[in-house]
């Protein structure tokens, strides 16, 4: 059986025009790999939104990265003060990966 190790999966829901914020923050703490997953619509305290609006200002995207615990902690610390002002939705969970040295 292949050996696996535990890493962190960080998921951040962010407005498309602000996607640079988590990307830069991740780069600053040494996380170079990430993927952006499209989101189609949603609802929250500020009402509903959906992607087919003319202006892309409210479109959202899911920033997804796998990182070591240290880097994940550093990223959460870096973004914590911006969660409210930039209305980011950030979650962290444990995942098993095969090639742990990559992250």
């Amino acid at each position, binding site marked *: 059986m292949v050996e696996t190790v535990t890493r962190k999966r960080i998921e951040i829901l962010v*407005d498309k*025009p602000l996607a*640079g914020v988590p990307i830069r923050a991740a780069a600053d703490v040494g996380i170079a790999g990430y993927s952006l997953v499209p989101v189609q619509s949603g609802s929250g305290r*500020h009402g509903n939104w959906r992607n*087919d609006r*003319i202006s*892309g*200002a409210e479109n959202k995207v899911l920033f997804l990265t796998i990182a070591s615990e240290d880097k994940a902690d550093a990223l959460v610390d870096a973004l914590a003060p911006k969660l409210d002002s930039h209305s980011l939705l950030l979650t962290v969970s444990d995942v098993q990966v095969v090639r742990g040295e990559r992250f």
Partner: protein
Amino acid sequence: MDIVISTLTSPVILFFILGMLAAFARSDLAIPEAIAKGLSLYLMAAIGLKGGVAVSESGFTPELALAAAAGLALSFVIPYFAYVLLTGFGKLDRVNAGAVSAHYGSVSVVTFVTASEIFTGQSMGPAGYMVAVLALMETPAIISGLMLARCGEKRDDNGNGGGLMHEVLLNASVVLLMGSFFIGLIAGPTGFEPIAPLFLVPFTGVLCFFLLDMGLVAARRLVEAKAMTFRLTTLGILFPIVNGTIGTVLGTMIGLDVGSAAALGVLAASASYIAVPAAMRMALPEADPGLYLSMSLGVTFPFNIIFGIPLFAALAQAIG
């Protein structure tokens, strides 16, 4: 009066109204996002080309320079005027008022295109160079709005100051408008001929389709608006009336033809809902996007399409 009736019974406007009614009735009619974006790129390329071809025939005239200067000035100044009313009567805080004010200084491409169509139908089509004026007016207001929002405050540096200026100056619509304007200028009428079957002939029909979508989007925005107050709705109607009147009068004063003066009025009256919202979301993340999108897209855009365009046409004819 004539222009009001002929505006309201033209298919272009009727499709817009159809879209609004469908959204108010909560129908699930929707134009796919990719199609709407594709059509808006088409409209920008088409008017850019048309303007460039026209200028290649007329040459660079003093009116062009005057109209450009007037447009730049309006785009810079309107936010200051709007800001005062937004913080006073509108009761917005500094950041939100700055963000909203930038939208009113900037312009709406589709409002301009619709006005051009309708003015041309009234034999008062605006001059070709007005497309360049349109492109020039997109961005100065962003600078004014940001200065207002941040005045006296230590910059919350997101480390994207340079990124923002870049985004603003090279945003898609400015590049495409100016790019196709120059292509039209280089190609001239003979170079344009082989591509006219795409960029000229079906133009009005495409605009119908696009306005159907705009009607849907604008009305949904209005229905779902949470942040709107009666005072802000009032400003969303007052701004285009005042700005459009100023623009039309200014255009007439600097000697533009009737159609171009009315078009300058329409540009002043219109509010951005593409370039500026994206820039504000980046630069002022604390501002509420629901607010500025509801005002510019939900209130001002429909007002201009249905009432503003004939209004400024009539005004330009009266004083022109």
